[in-house]
């Protein structure tokens, strides 16, 4: 056997028996509104940042894929993704236990979705404005969530599907200075998941 071929054969054997790193693909996808996030792939000492639609890393090498390629390669796993959670926002008439007219209509839409999606579970999240301190707002927001949860229970939604949470003043719809009354921030959000 000529020496060149022999060296080739030995090299091929070495490549064959050495444990090759696994073939892995990571692809960043655009969201429904076209926005993209970022995924950092750390492979040994190499680091690849994916930050544009369908940017991919294949075994550490950056590659650009197309939507069609991603669909054909990842079809089954993408099809298995759970539905995106939907969100409903409810307001009470200031100082009262009653929903505003607009929110009553929103409540009807919420109930329709809950009936149409019997496998969904529900997270009820209370929010406050920035009047009062953080701790009392945490308690108040949870109270608001509990009130809506009780209403949903009363309407026949089973307890096993319902959870509640209080976000206090951390997630205002409208940014304000501390201590400012803002009715639009006193709300209850319902996530159907």
């Amino acid at each position, binding site marked *: 056997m000529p020496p060149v071929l022999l060296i080739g054969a030995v090299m091929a054997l070495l490549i064959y028996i050495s444990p090759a*790193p*696994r*073939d*892995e*693909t*990571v*692809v*960043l*996808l*655009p*969201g429904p509104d076209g*926005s*993209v*996030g*970022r*995924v*950092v*792939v*750390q*492979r*040994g000492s190499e680091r690849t940042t*994916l930050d544009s639609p369908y940017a991919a*890393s294949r075994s*550490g090498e950056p590659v650009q894929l197309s939507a069609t390629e*991603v669909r054909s*390669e*990842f079809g*089954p*796993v*993408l*099809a*298995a*993704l*759970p*539905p*995106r*959670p939907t969100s409903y926002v409810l307001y009470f008439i200031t100082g009262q236990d009653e929903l505003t007219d607009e929110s009553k209509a929103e409540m009807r839409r919420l109930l329709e979705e809950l009936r149409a999606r019997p*496998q969904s*579970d529900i*997270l009820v*999240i209370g929010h406050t404005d920035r009047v009062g301190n953080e701790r009392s707002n*945490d308690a108040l927001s949870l109270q608001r969530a509990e009130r809506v949860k009780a209403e949903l229970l009363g309407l026949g939604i089973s307890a096993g599907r319902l*959870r509640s*949470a*209080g*976000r*206090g003043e*951390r997630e205002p719809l409208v940014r304000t200075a501390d201590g400012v009354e803002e009715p639009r921030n006193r709300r209850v959000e319902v*996530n159907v*998941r």
Partner: protein
Amino acid sequence: MRSIVGLGILAFSVAAFAADVGEVKTASGTAHVEREGARLPVKVGMQVRQSDKLVTGADGAVGVTFLDNTLVSTGPNSTLVIDSYRFDTTTHAGKFDASLTRGSLAVISGKMVKQSPDAMRIRTPSSVLGVRGTEFVVKVADTD
């Protein structure tokens, strides 16, 4: 007295939910969860816990919605371990570590990544993925 009872109920309800970190929303084909040595068939509505191992067969796929609205699915011939999951519904602080040892995974990150970009990490046999948001897919090829 009333407040003690109230506290007891609160502690109980927190404990009852503490172990459950997600819920199976989609399931098809062969799939099971390995939990504390037991093999549980995957069904829609089943609760997912920390340390669960989700295993799918050649025709299997599973989708899970986690407490913070992170959506995760695995495709056929996949194994995904939920290494750790914590989420505070008030502050949105949390941690989500999972390992994909084979097969495919799709992720739409949730509230905890929005709150702190370092909250979620996915391990594969040769990489660690830092998830800064929001949607991505991963595939680990079979060794043989």
